[in-house]
């Protein structure tokens, strides 16, 4: 029986977004990162183009998060309060392709650090590593706006990924991104229509499409992963089918979400069937990351070095087998 590969030619294409800027481009990064550009479902090399691999970022903080998991402390204990050094370790030792600087400590109830202090932290990390940065804020609108404005200004020209704006609070930060040339994350809570609506609102501000990344919100494995998974699959399907307001690269945050999950860190002594907690901490992040990569994630912010290593290795292997032109499907 003759078999023909059922190819789907998608009319849509995911927007290509570049983050970071080299000296020529007005920044100080040694390299930039580009995501998107796909014309088919994730890893479907047999029917479309996938010019850029998904990118793995790792995260540093201006203030160590409450309940920081022990499985991560063993890798970072001595640098947890030194974001620059922690960033250097993430890049040099653990293979981070970008660094996210999380400014949680500026939240009025979590330290209330000033915008100026936040700028210092970001500058410290910029000086410590040469990869592009993600600047991650929080949900306190007023304070976040103040901090992000200052950070955008202080890093003008670096084309950082400013993470994030939401439907009820996007104008100030989006305007700062436009003024100082940064790229932006539009975050919405696990819903296709809300995601689309925010992208339209940003479009109405003339926010350029090639500077926009979507975050449809990550649920960790066991804690809403299936919702994130299906929303992301639907967004990617719609984007490829030609809905331009959904055809953006997607960001996920397996690190921060899994760090909150008790099942990822409770010790085997208390829960014998859950197995070795050291491995489990990484496993939880790997399962979250791999399933959401399959659903369409382009940019991942992760925490666990072993998880980063395994996920990057699999991404490399998948893309490599394609570059060789050697995967089984096309050997018909």
């Amino acid at each position: 029986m003759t078999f023909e590969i059922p190819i789907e030619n998608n009319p849509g294409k995911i927007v290509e977004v570049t983050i970071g800027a080299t000296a020529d481009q007005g920044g100080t990064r040694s390299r930039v990162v580009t995501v998107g550009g796909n014309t088919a479902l994730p890893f479907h090399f047999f029917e479309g183009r996938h010019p850029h691999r998904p990118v793995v970022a790792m995260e540093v903080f201006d203030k160590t998060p409450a309940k920081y998991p022990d499985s991560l402390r063993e890798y970072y204990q001595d640098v947890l309060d030194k974001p620059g050094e922690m960033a250097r370790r993430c890049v040099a030792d653990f293979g981070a392709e970008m660094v996210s600087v999380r400014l949680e400590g500026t939240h009025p109830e979590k330290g209330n650090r000033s915008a100026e202090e936040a700028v210092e932290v970001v500058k410290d990390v910029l000086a410590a590593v040469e990869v592009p940065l993600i600047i991650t804020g929080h949900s306190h609108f007023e304070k976040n706006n103040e901090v992000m404005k200052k950070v955008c200004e202080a890093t003008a020209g670096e084309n950082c990924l400013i993470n994030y704006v939401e439907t009820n609070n996007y104008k100030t930060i989006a305007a700062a991104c436009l003024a100082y040339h940064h790229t932006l994350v539009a975050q919405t809570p696990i819903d296709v229509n809300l995601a689309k609506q925010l992208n339209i609102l940003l479009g109405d501000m003339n926010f350029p499409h090639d500077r926009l990344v979507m975050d449809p919100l990550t649920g960790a494995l066991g804690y809403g992963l299936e919702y994130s998974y299906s929303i992301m699959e639907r967004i990617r399907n719609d984007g490829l089918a030609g809905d331009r307001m959904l055809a953006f690269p997607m960001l996920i945050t397996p690190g921060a979400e899994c760090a909150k999950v008790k099942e990822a860190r409770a010790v085997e002594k208390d829960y014998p069937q859950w197995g070795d907690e050291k491995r489990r901490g990484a496993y939880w992040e790997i399962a979250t990351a791999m399933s959401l990569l399959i659903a369409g994630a382009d940019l991942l912010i992760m925490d666990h070095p072993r998880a980063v290593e395994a996920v990057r290795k699999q991404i490399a292997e998948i893309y490599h087998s394609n570059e060789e032109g050697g995967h089984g499907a096309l050997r018909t």
Partner: protein
Amino acid sequence: MALSGLDIFKLLPKTNCGDCGVPTCMAFAMKIAQKKAELSSCPHASEEAKAALGAASEPPVRLVKIGAGNGPEVGGETVLFRHEKTFFHPTGIGLEIRTSQGEDKILDDVRELEGYRAERVGEVLKADLFFISHDSAEKAAFLRAVSLAKANSTKGLVIDCPDEEALKEGLELLRNDRPAIYLRRPLTERDIEMAKTSGASLVITASSPQDLADQTEKARQSGLTNLILNCQGNGLGGAIQNNAILRRSALKKSFKPFGFPLFIRIADADGFESLAASAALLCKYASIIILPRFDKALLYTLFTLRQNIYTDPQKPIQVDPRIYAIGDPTPDSPVFVTTNFSLTYFIVSGEIENSGTSAHLVVCDTEGQSVLTAWAGGKFVPEKIAKFIKDIKLEEKVKTRKIVIPGFVAQISGELEEKLPGWEVIVGCQEAADIPSFVKSVNLV
């Protein structure tokens, strides 16, 4: 592809003899099309008609059962994306046993996996299969491994044995156990005979879809229907793409040779890589995943992913309506109330835990709906909340008389207070993420 009434009519004798209990062939054809009658009621139907109708009623992906006891039923899927409907038959997860590992190790592995059980949101998580791979030179080692697995386990068995004599004897040992035979090399007539006489399923392996189609077609033509397909190609990228191609061909093109469950064997690597590959393939159509090593943490993680991906998206997972202790609550700790939509429960309980406060979380039965939906649908309203609180005898279990309701239903606070005499109803925050700051800003004790 379903046939129309007219298509079916064309296949009937058109004599209107009425022996089927319906006056005309046309009326009978319409009944079949509506699934209100079956072709077998017409004693005069031709072989050709039976074959055509049989093919049309075949499911797009066959359901195959491995094992007699607790073995899994796999396949039977109807959609490519879980959001289109749901995935029905959770991936069967198994462990590879190599006969060269020696009897002690084999027995250990069999007992470990057989004994593994965990519970998660009301569901028992356990493995489904053993994959016995004969990689030593001794026939006795293979037969011993088969006997050990049979004697110590109720799970389904897949056996892989290049030595045909040993395989036949192994099948004899498993006479009533409906095992599956994994074929390392292309399918032969002898394999087909063996499957027919033993009742075993066949796992057909190939490196490309075309090669696979040729083999599967041969098996189908000889009447075999319990087939499982293994086409992993080159690395994880090849496996993901091949699975996508096979499943899409079966569901979208009605390509029958690929209308079977898909089998994946995870290469032996460190656990991190094994899990990464397993997780990706569990999402993309693996009906069976065979793991190289027993690792509890990996199993628990993969079972949780399976639970997530195979949840019916139209029917959210519900948690048991009752009082949950978050942290180490005392009778004076505050009470929070919410709905039994699993996601709501997880997020609220997680954020209370994050806040560092211990509390009692009262989870009301809202049939799995979230706060606003349940309120709008009359399932999370003062009357029902108050009744539930009385039913669970909350007043006897705690000393506090402060109860926090979700900020989204602030409007019910007055009425709820009326229905719960002696209680102070406090309106909480709207977003669970704000619970840590909420508990800091409000006096709850």
